[in-house]
């Protein structure tokens, strides 16, 4: 980690940017609720602890006036529009606050016919970056605290939304640690990679936070919860853990929006987004597919071409 990159006196990103986004979100949220255009605004509000935030479903003008955007706004709120959490929203049109990466998830859900674009009012945030896992939310955002995904972010500015809240400041140019880590793993022998991943997976306690927080894990019956047959062992042992994370990576291949929420919420600090990002890279190379802020009709694993590569098939 490049911990000395930035000292704490000059923040990595001007806090005024977040304040401006906050003001714009509040104005829009209040306007939408007053005008009756939406039944609720899904956004972020402050938690009890210094700097902490939590998702909020604001249905009143008071609540809307307390929505905010800060580097602690890590959650991908598209989760609330997936089947898993949608029941908590009031009936009717809703507005949602999304960062660029979250918008890709929203677009993915629309692409998978989970919701229609006209059912949501999308408030995009010009997002300079958010905290990663293990960061101290009470401190200003530093290069060390910045989420790894944000270093490689290409969607700071959401497109195709109903409103963009805030403007982008000049962004720091930081090395893409995730890409470096993937390259490091690729350069290893298979035995070394196996040792790396099995050590990581051995820490897994199967709290399933990775699944529950993922907007794309909306199956009403997860394969891994089925027991006739038991495809993946449920006990938190290395064997079942490895199978679980591989199955998950496979089920997200070509769908994952890269929000890296699975990695952030993992209490055991397993670098899950490396798997997702690696799969995304491969699917781009093989089929030219990338997660997008615009809904796409097909994902690479639900479509095909007659002339797809089959050099690996005898």
């Amino acid at each position, binding site marked *: 980690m490049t911990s000395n990159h930035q000292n704490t006196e000059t923040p990595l990103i001007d806090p005024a940017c977040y304040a401006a986004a906050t003001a714009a979100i509040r104005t829009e949220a209040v306007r939408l609720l007053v005008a009756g255009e939406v039944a609720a605004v899904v956004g972020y509000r402050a938690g009890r602890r210094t700097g902490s935030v939590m998702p909020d479903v604001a249905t009143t003008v008071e609540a809307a006036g307390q929505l905010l955007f800060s580097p602690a706004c890590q959650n991908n709120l598209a989760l609330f529009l997936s089947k898993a959490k949608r029941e908590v929203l009031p009936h009717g049109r809703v507005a949602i606050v999304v960062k660029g990466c979250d918008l890709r998830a929203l677009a993915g859900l629309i692409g998978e016919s989970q919701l229609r674009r006209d059912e949501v009012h999308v408030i995009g945030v010009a997002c300079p970056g958010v905290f990663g896992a293990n960061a101290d939310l009470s401190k200003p955002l530093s290069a060390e605290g910045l989420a790894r995904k944000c270093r490689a972010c290409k969607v700071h500015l959401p497109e195709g939304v109903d409103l963009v809240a805030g403007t982008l400041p000049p962004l720091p140019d930081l090395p893409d640690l995730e890409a470096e880590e993937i390259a490091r*793993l*690729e350069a*290893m022998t*298979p*035995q*070394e*990679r*196996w*040792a*790396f*991943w*099995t050590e990581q997976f*051995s820490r897994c306690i199967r709290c399933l936070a990775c699944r529950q927080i993922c907007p794309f894990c909306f199956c009403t019956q997860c*394969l891994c919860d089925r027991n006739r047959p038991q*495809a*993946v062992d449920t006990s*938190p*042992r*290395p*064997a079942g853990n*490895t*199978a679980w994370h*591989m*199955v998950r*990576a*496979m089920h997200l*291949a*070509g769908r994952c929006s890269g929000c890296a929420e699975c990695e952030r919420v993992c209490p055991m600090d397993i670098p899950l987004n490396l*798997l997702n990002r*690696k*799969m995304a890279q*491969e*699917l781009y190379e*093989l*089929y030219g597919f990338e997660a997008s802020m615009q809904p796409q009709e097909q994902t*690479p*694993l*639900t*479509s*095909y*071409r*007659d002339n*797809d*590569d*089959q050099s*690996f*098939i*005898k």
Partner: protein
Amino acid sequence: MHAEKQHHAFEPKLVAFVCTWCTYAGADLAGTSRMHYPSNVRVVKFPCTGRIDPVFILRAFQKGADGVLVSGCHPGDCHYMAGNFHARRRFAAFRQLLDFVGVDLDRLQFSWVSAAEGGKWVEVVTELTERIRQMGPMREFRELDAEEHWSAQLDEPEIRAAYNAIP
């Protein structure tokens, strides 16, 4: 199978996931034509390669397979029009994942074997068997299955004896 069957120090266990229309029929043809191929392979048939979930392959390795073969109809011959086209993409992606996690891809073979290709079935199975024989047993998944979290481990009896011996 036959008198001239060689004895090897290691007989690999192979699992073949095949589609019922092409490869299964091809394997059947090999059998009815009295062609010889290694008996190391256990065949599991599916309606279509499109039904073969990567989790089956993981499960096979976890349950002790040393190698896995997935085989179905040639592109364009799928009885369900596009099952094998989807499978082709899915397995292309799955191979990348396996590789990234550190599984040796030589243990996994994909092939197109039609109902008429009894000979190709024999060739594919023989080649894979020989290759896996050279590679030796698939240790990784089996070791993983034996691994326990430290808190669930018991002392080795020798350690216990040593502990008890110390005053």
